[in-house]
């Protein structure tokens, strides 16, 4: 039995790759190391996690070619199916790739194939407090419910652009409530307030690397003083811990925490 964790939203800048990196970190703590797959022309995940760790499928054709003829890449993506049936995987779909990949999955009956091979699926959709991100995320969730009915669907409210209080009465959130009644999980993703956040991004450092860095290293890379660097690492760790606690209930149901990590 294998497990596949997907992250997607057609809107860019909603934190897909960051979420994938955090998920990879959290699943690893629970003894489920993920083979990461990046289906994105930009291969952002590979930039952070290293090319050894990430299989960059890219999109098999230029994005413009693909828009003209979506079936161009179908046979290419079949490789993705082989990967996720064989091992525990984390799949990061680039912005604007969700429709193509989901269309391919539907036509290939990937959902049925995964059930047949006993492959579980968690489908995470991060959204920011932005109408486009919300509507695009809901579109993905609706399609996923149809294509992968056995999957767990998780809406991640990424608060980097602010909280979602203003959306309480919108049709989008009524739709979220409907989906929640049908099994949608909703988790929150706080904004990381670490002063060195943008530096960590610039240096392409994934969470597991950041928490291993010493204050001296961070100070040298960011130009912060050592105290400020230590505080920045502490803020980052606080954010990561919050993320871990939010995601724990979902991850813990897959496999029990290894004895060493549970101490």
């Amino acid at each position, binding site marked *: 039995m294998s497990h596949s964790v997907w992250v997607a939203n057609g809107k860019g800048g909603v934190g897909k790759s960051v979420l994938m990196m955090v998920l990879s970190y959290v699943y690893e703590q629970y003894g489920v190391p993920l083979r990461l797959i990046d289906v994105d022309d930009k291969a952002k995940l590979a930039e952070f996690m290293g090319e050894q760790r990430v299989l960059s499928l*890219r999109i098999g054709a230029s994005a*413009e070619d693909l828009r003209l003829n979506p079936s161009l890449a179908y046979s290419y993506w079949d490789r993705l199916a082989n990967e996720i049936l064989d091992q525990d995987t984390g799949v990061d779909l680039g912005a604007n790739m969700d429709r193509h990949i989901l269309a391919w999955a539907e036509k290939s009956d990937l959902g049925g194939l995964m059930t047949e091979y006993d492959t579980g699926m968690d489908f995470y959709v991060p959204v920011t407090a932005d109408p*486009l991100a919300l509507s695009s995320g809901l579109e993905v969730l609706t399609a996923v419910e149809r294509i992968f009915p056995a999957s767990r669907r998780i809406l991640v409210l990424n608060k980097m652009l602010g909280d979602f209080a203003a959306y309480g009465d919108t049709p989008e959130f009524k739709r979220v409530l409907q989906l929640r009644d049908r099994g949608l999980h909703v988790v929150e993703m706080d904004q990381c307030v670490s002063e060195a956040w943008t530096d960590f991004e610039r240096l392409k450092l994934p969470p597991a690397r950041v928490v291993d860095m010493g*204050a001296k290293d961070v100070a040298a890379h960011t130009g912060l003083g050592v105290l400020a660097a230590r505080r920045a690492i*502490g803020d980052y*760790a606080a954010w990561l*811990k919050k993320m*871990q606690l939010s995601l724990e209930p979902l991850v813990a149901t897959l496999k029990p925490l290894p004895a060493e*990590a549970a*101490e």
Partner: protein
Amino acid sequence: MSAVAKLDRLIDAGRRAGRQESARLIDSLLAMSIEDRWRLLMTRDRQLTRLAPADYQLFVRSLGINAVLEDAPATWLNDMGPITGATPVVEPRGVAAGTGAARFRCEPTRTADAPIQLDGPLVWALPFAVCVLLALAVIGVGLPWSSDGPAVTAAVADQAEERHADHLEDRLADEALTRQRWPDRVDDATHVRETLRQLKADLADGRPFLQSLAQAERHLLVLPIADGGALQRLLPLAEAGVPTLDGLRQALGSLHDRHRERTQSATLLGAMGRLARRMAGGLAPAQRRADRVNQALLDSRRELDRGHLNAAIRMVTGVAAGVGPEAVEWLELAHARRAATMIAEQLETMIDMTPSLGEILAALPTGGPNGLGIPSVDVGPDGTLDRVDDRMLA
């Protein structure tokens, strides 16, 4: 060590470092002049985010206020819970809650809290001192009077008259000068808002802003915007104006079209080869790079369509090396737009804080001193002193 324990250790170390850093910082902040401290607060300077809640409160109190900005600066402060003792911010009338510039509520003065009380030795010492002073005054005046009589009286009267005349002369000179300056000062006070609005509109709409900037500087001497020198960097665009989002969108569109045309021939020539390589699971590196640049430019255009300038800048920056000087030029303009937007926001805050003409007029007591320099001495048509406002003598 488990992962969570490791994170906890880092969090604790971070908090300890934060407290040490805050303790160091507060000393240097409190050593600053009050003007500099106000500037830091009003511009929400990044340094303030490094203060622990207690130190932040100390800093705010050092300005004589007992309230904090509604959106108190925070990085690690968020982790420390709400700042204790913060008073809810009261918005002035006409400003809806949560909009406009943050306002402050002044702390009651010390004497309002605890009026001075006469107790202990003061109860006896003060009346005694008053009695002694009165006795000395009686002796000082009475002694010469009793000895020289009328001569002394005349001399004292002369001296008093002379002093009075000198005093009046000085005051008339002052008042004349004040009258002379008054129109300028009223002009300044009443036009500041209008001037700031004009500068803000010019920056926002991409119009030349050289004239409005000069006007603003004339009225405010030095434009008190702490923008990290952004305004200075915009000066080269003062005559042409900072391009608007729409202008940037068009410029990026033509840049993208030109780049696509340039890379198209390579696309056609390499079509067969690419097809073969695509079957094998990859694209030629050069083609992939060109595709990546084109895609990034396309995405940037979309971000701009949605009004996301920062995202567009980030994307174009990522591929600027692959596009060439055109992209660098575009980025310069885009950065200028971002700076102009930031300055326009600061100007909005200044406009909000500057009294309107109505408020200025409402603050003027009829015929009295008002802090703006209205003469308190009225001189009649014949040049004689007509009326003196007693408050000027205080």
